[in-house]
């Protein structure tokens, strides 16, 4: 059985998530889906808006943190969630994504920050894997 795209891990005080993906684009998308599921973000019925996102970062771990942080800011500041997330392209230092944004109906628990705690994107037999710790 293939390993899940994301799974919650035990963490004493905060939330941790192991994320997998065949390629970096998959890993980025699965990390976003896992984070949104952890925080219990629910989209309201209402107008959807398509948005292109471009990010440039120091390296691929920073790219992952920056991407997730960008989504968190949308949840908090613009009260939107993301029913569709497509990573159009990703390199070690940049990404282009297409996000479909919808008004946020409910958020069970806010994630306040994405940390670099022991963050490494590593390769194994199934592709790429990373463990993320979120400050809640």
């Amino acid at each position, binding site marked *: 059985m293939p390993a899940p795209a994301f799974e919650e891990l035990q963490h004493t005080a905060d939330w941790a998530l192991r994320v997998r993906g065949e390629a970096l684009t998959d890993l980025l998308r699965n990390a976003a889906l896992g984070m949104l599921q952890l925080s219990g973000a629910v989209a309201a019925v209402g107008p959807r808006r398509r948005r292109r996102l471009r990010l440039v970062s120091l390296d691929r771990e920073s790219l992952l*943190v920056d991407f997730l942080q960008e989504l968190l800011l949308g949840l908090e500041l613009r009260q939107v969630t993301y029913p569709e997330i497509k990573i159009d392209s990703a390199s070690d230092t940049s990404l282009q994504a297409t996000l479909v944004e919808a008004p946020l109906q409910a958020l069970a*628990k806010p994630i306040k920050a994405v940390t*670099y705690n022991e963050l490494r994107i590593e390769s194994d037999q199934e592709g790429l894997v990373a463990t993320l710790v979120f400050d809640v």
Partner: protein
Amino acid sequence: MLSKKDFRQINPLLWEVPITFQEGMRVPVRLFADERLLEDALEDKSLQQAVNASTLPGLVGQVIVMPDVHQGYGFPIGGVAATRLPDGVVSPGAIGYDINCGVRLLASRIPLEAVERQLPDLASALYANCPSGVGVKGSLRLTAKDLDRVCRLGAEWALERGYARQDDLDCTEESGRLDGADPGAVSPRAKDRGRPQLGTLGAGNHFIEVDVVDQLFAAQAARAMGLEAGALVVQIHCGSRGFGHQICSDYVREFQPAVGRYGIRLPDRELVCAPLDSPEGQRYLSAMACAANFAFANRQVLAHHVRRSFEQALAGGVPDWDLHQVYDIAHNMGKIESHPVQGEAVRVCVHRKGATRAFGPGFQGLPEKYRPLGQPVLVPGSMGTASWVLLGTQGSMELSFGSTCHGAGRVMSRKQAKREVRGDQLRIALEKSGIQVRAGSMPGLAEEAPQAYKDVDAVVEVVSGAGIAQKVARLRPVAVIKG
């Protein structure tokens, strides 16, 4: 992974990991704990995180770990590290995301038995007046200019606006205003997050709690603090909200390339740092001071709402419903202080993450009434269990860079707590034991269940037995307000 055999026992309540344990350690790690709390600490990665922190450049003395330690990110919650000025480092992750998360204690002369019937109304008034929960906005509408003034003035801003009394500021760490704040060092994103959140409690482990003074241990100190056995007090536990989180996130990101520039090697990227005298380090300290001042103002506005709630619920029922401020103290902060290192006073940046400043008697920065006694230390327990009022001691100045514990400390993950505890059943159990509960989220309540935390009484026994704090009063909860 560390085990008990890696520790040298210095005395029954103090353990040390020597610098030979791991390559790159610059100072030893010292843990205040009894055998049981040491074993609890070995259950997660908190002590390995303390070992990792001991590689930060410019450290002096030891990395100190408190008995309420638990795993954080990069640096453990319950850790203290002091770096020498000017070229030691400052590490945003070793101060924490919720900059100046802290506790304020307000005290009354209202005997519990006089208001027992009004407690449900009081809890409801507090829940209605103190905005809490996910994504909540406060009643204040700050302009960009207002927010800059909050950054510079902290609790003084609240005094200007009628949300504070001069006595409140006098009884706040740093009088509620940290010098050196520069709003220009704060990103527009952080300001966008902070502007609607001033005067809000938020969610997570933050709370407002009404307690009764259950036991007194030091009569003179209790008198100075205005604590009376059997009377109601209120704790406010919160910090700088999304504003501080964004500032920390911004600087952890900004410092990623800085470590390379300064030739610093670290075992965990969350520990990124820059020399205190570098442009990056100075800029972070200016931004951190903004978040610290935001948090002082935040707790001050909440204190105003708490007073309003007492008036609404109790006026007419009791002759005096006033609340005076005992103290307000930070437990996530970086402070420039002077401490003895090998017999010499040294200027250091003390990183306290989940650790409370606990200055002993005689410190000039304390309010006059506390100067002969030492600084009040506020140690909230878990929901449904005791909290403590302590005093800083000469021992804390000598052994822990003027620091002590900050709470009970978690032992159970949030995931496990939610699996084992149902929020609605917990609420019923707490109410049966005489504690009013007002909470926005039942799963959130379950995550904060008392069984997810260590025994705060055991933690306090350690810091008191080790001489890094002195007991003044034990508090028992009667109403809990959570987001």
